């Protein structure tokens, strides 16, 4: 069953990458769709962050969730330093600190 999911996911992902490179007709994406696709990354990643951090054991957890302040702190760090490693580091240390002392 997992193999079915891996192979189908792989095929679909490849087909999306190949869609325009492989097409013989010089098709273009209609401008509205093109513009929407420009927001896929931000929209998808935000949805993942929110459900990863706020949903604990399938329950929406806003209070008593140390990941929220840790994420906010990391967000500020990301804005200031624009560096992936620094952001991850500050977030992980903040979470560890909060879990240990609070």
């Amino acid at each position: 069953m997992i193999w079915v999911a891996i192979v189908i996911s792989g095929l679909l992902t490849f087909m999306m990458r190949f869609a325009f490179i492989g097409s013989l007709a010089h098709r273009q994406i209609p401008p509205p769709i093109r513009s929407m696709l420009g927001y896929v990354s931000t929209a998808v990643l935000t949805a993942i962050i929110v459900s990863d951090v706020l949903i604990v054991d399938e329950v929406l957890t806003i209070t008593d969730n140390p990941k929220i302040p840790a994420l906010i702190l990391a967000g500020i760090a990301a804005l200031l330093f624009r560096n992936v490693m620094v952001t991850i580091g500050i977030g992980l240390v903040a979470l560890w600190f909060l879990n240990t002392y609070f």
Partner: protein
Amino acid sequence: MAETQSPFRGRDEFFRGLRDEAPLMVGVMPFGLIFGALGTEAGLTPVQIMAMSIIIFGGASQVIFLQLYATGANPLLVSGTVSVINLRHTLYSASIAMYFRHLSLRWKVLLSYLLTDEAFAVTMRRYESQPPNPVMHYHLLGSGTLLWVSWQLTTFIGLLLGAAIPPSLGLGFAIPLTFMAIIIPHIMQAPHFVAILTSGIVAILTSHLPWKLNLIIASMAGMLAGYLAEQVKAKAARS
């Protein structure tokens, strides 16, 4: 081959691609380690984990695959969610296609397989900053190959380490942190800000749905909101 007479050498473009891609490895390598470790934690065999990195070859989507698989979602739903996350690759394909028209089908297949976020970013910059030469596609071969090798290698090291890393260390939290680092630079652009806000709110409102359906719904809502905000902004700029 015409390439031997051409003043441009594929080799040079290939190595340029490697060099341009190298700085981005700082973000890719920890991600690969984390994916490998999470795969082991989720109970997958080493062969299954490596197969995911080789067959799917798409970081964020592989992590979501693991999370969905753990909830027992059916394979079609898993593949559907992976596809939504990887939808952006059609945009990359459309943007770079015009430069690859003269290539053989074999090249097109290979370069499509290597077309990931980071490789597209540096190679597209190359195409746009220079008048395209007939061997410039070697640049994507270089950037894509470096990314591919790093991703497979770190997945492998991660799955070996996975068994040794205690879940209590909260390594999984590194995933949302990585994504945070990616979206934050866009937050100052109004349409992106609207997309982020919409996606976040919809993800919370639909969080009670099974199989992480909230991811698909929130992503679609965020895309649409970003597009609408862009339209409003364009209209405001015109008037």
